[in-house]
């Protein structure tokens, strides 16, 4: 099993009365709440935490893209990833990912990711999300009805740009380029592994099956809330004749490890509340721009709902963030906490139940300090991970993991600096 250390990079100092006084953490969050000098500190601390995780032996470190978002300070995850590519030596660099439709032409993504694959010696995992409505349609002004067609076309363009052995013309519905020619070329051949964070739509599952992509369900609410989607995924994969290789799937989980359950509760309740209460304070009016969800998916969603007056009013709203659940974060498994053995048991149970071989982990969540984060990471790496790394390895081959250059051939920053 693979363990990926995922940073959202939340702004840690949103005020206590944020929820009462502000409409949303995303899209129209007050710029006056951002102290740039504090920004300087937290970026550097967060990069330290990612590098610490790589040093501690985590399989990968992950970054992602959000815009106008108080809990996600990486409008450009590639900037952070390029720092990590230089500052770490063995961990995979997972960009989860670039919202492809936001780049014009999307060739830009092929180029930047090829650069990072070169700098890191072939350690890149290329994440291709559609992007949330908040990021893409509201913060970035993308037309919701055109977002998915643009996204699918961008995937065609980028993967072809990586794999083509000569310059080519691309005549798409949205992008036309006479000369597509990505320099540098990615180290990994024919291309870096592609991971797709999805929300549970059948179109995405079908694409992952057809194109040999990995599917990851990234819910902030942990393994229990991921179960229905992951079971749907495996059912669909089976119907498409795909084998149930757990390494073709990932899910997101917040985790807090301590010496005991009691200590874990003491350490992680505050950061958990900050994350679920403050960071996820999102106005529902930004959840469902008309056209973002396809008519087919809407029809499927409606058909599975019991129609009541209450849910009719909300039926077009995205299912992304369920704020009523925030108080039960430990009981409901939104955050797995406990002693190393308790955490390992819970993860094993969840991974087997969901048949998922890649765990993307929030070992930093909310407003955790660097010390607490590193403590969590250290305990996880030393006492939890060793209990689980063999899981699935005997039966399945991981075909969606980076294949870097041989370690002896890779240039390390420390060597270069000497």
């Amino acid at each position, binding site marked *: 099993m693979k363990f990926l250390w995922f940073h959202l990079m939340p702004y840690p100092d949103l005020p206590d009365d944020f929820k009462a006084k502000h409409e949303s953490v995303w899209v129209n969050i007050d710029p006056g709440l951002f102290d740039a000098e504090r920004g300087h500190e937290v970026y550097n601390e967060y990069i330290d935490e990612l590098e610490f995780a790589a040093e501690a032996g985590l399989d990968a470190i992950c970054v992602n893209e959000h815009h106008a978002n108080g809990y996600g300070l990486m409008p450009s995850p590639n900037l952070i990833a390029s720092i990590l590519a230089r500052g770490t030596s063995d961990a995979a660099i997972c960009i989860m990912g670039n919202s492809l439709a936001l780049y014009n032409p999307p060739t830009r993504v092929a180029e930047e990711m090829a650069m990072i694959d070169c700098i890191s010696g072939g350690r890149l995992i290329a994440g291709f999300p559609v992007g949330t409505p908040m990021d893409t*349609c509201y913060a970035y002004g993308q037309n*919701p*009805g*055109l977002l998915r067609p643009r996204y699918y076309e961008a995937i065609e363009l980028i993967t072809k740009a990586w794999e083509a052995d000569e310059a080519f013309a691309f005549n798409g519905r949205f992008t036309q380029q006479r000369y597509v020619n990505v320099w540098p070329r990615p180290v990994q051949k024919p291309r870096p592994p592609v991971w797709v964070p999805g929300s549970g739509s059948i179109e995405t599952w079908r694409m992952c099956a057809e194109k040999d992509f990995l599917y990851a369900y990234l819910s902030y609410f942990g393994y229990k809330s991921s179960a229905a989607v992951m079971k749907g995924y495996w059912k669909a994969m089976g119907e498409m004749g795909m084998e149930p290789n757990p390494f073709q799937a990932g899910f997101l989980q917040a985790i807090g490890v301590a010496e005991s359950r009691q200590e874990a509760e003491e350490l992680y309740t505050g950061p958990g509340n900050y994350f679920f209460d403050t960071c996820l304070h999102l106005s529902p009016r930004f959840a469902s721009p008309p056209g973002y969800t396809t008519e087919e998916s809407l029809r499927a969603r*409606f058909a599975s709902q019991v129609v009541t007056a209450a849910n009719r009013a909300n039926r077009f709203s995205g299912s992304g963030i369920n704020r009523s659940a925030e108080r039960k974060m430990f009981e409901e498994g939104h955050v797995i906490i406990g002693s190393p053995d308790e955490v390992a048991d819970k993860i094993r149970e969840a991974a087997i139940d969901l048949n998922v071989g890649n765990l993307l982990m929030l070992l930093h969540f909310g407003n955790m300090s660097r010390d607490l984060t590193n403590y969590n990471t250290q305990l996880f790496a030393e006492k939890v991970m060793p209990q689980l790394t063999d899981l699935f390895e005997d039966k399945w081959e991981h075909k969606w993991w980076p294949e870097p250059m041989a370690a002896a051939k890779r240039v390390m920053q420390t060597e270069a600096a000497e």
Partner: protein
Amino acid sequence: MNAMTERTVETPGGAARVWEMGSGETVGYFAGLHGLPGWLPLLDSLSENRQVVVPSLPGYPGGSDHEQLDDLFDWILAARDVHTASGLGGADLIGASVGGALAAEIAAAWPDAVRRLVLIAPYGMYVDEDPSTDVFAQAQDKLSAIMSANPEAYDSYVDTPDGEDEVEWDLTRFRAQMAAARLLWPLGDTKLGKRLARIHQPALIIWGADDKILPASYAQRFADAISGPASVRIIEGAGHKVEFDAPDAVAEAIGEFLNNP
């Protein structure tokens, strides 16, 4: 009392519903946000002394597929196609909101296709000093309150009629929002402003004084930009759906304009 009839016309983009009522001189009507889930009292009034022809625009209830329309040129051609197919070439044309933006485009691009133009709170402009409301970032249960000065009545108008399937009805309603968003995202500014000078036809601009989506101040901007004789009528007590909120006042204004050009 006239009876409303329904027919279907073929366009290059697919079949479209056309409603008709009355007899006499023909006037076309392009609907606004939400399209026409049902007949409107305004159309009854207009049909008392003319033939009212109401084609459905792409994505609206009864309209052709909107998902093939990628840019403004596609939209203008699709609107012109259904305008032609429903026999409106050369007739007077009324367009409300989203339909107003497209009616104005047709009048600007094909001067002979539109005799006189009535725009009811048309989309197509965005003014920095007087910004419009983001109709696409509203909770669904709050939409009626910003669309209409009579939100309860408007809720009833768009709600599922007896005998209709609720899921399909809601999808139809939401599809109209998808189509409007596809055309107008993100600001509702199609840059129509720079084409209004091509309109030399007589024009009437109607706006609800209490329009919570597009400020009533836009009315004069439209009138000023149009080259033909253009007058403005602001209707008190009406919101963005002025044709729904104040059908009598709108019918009277249109009647005056079309009878006494």
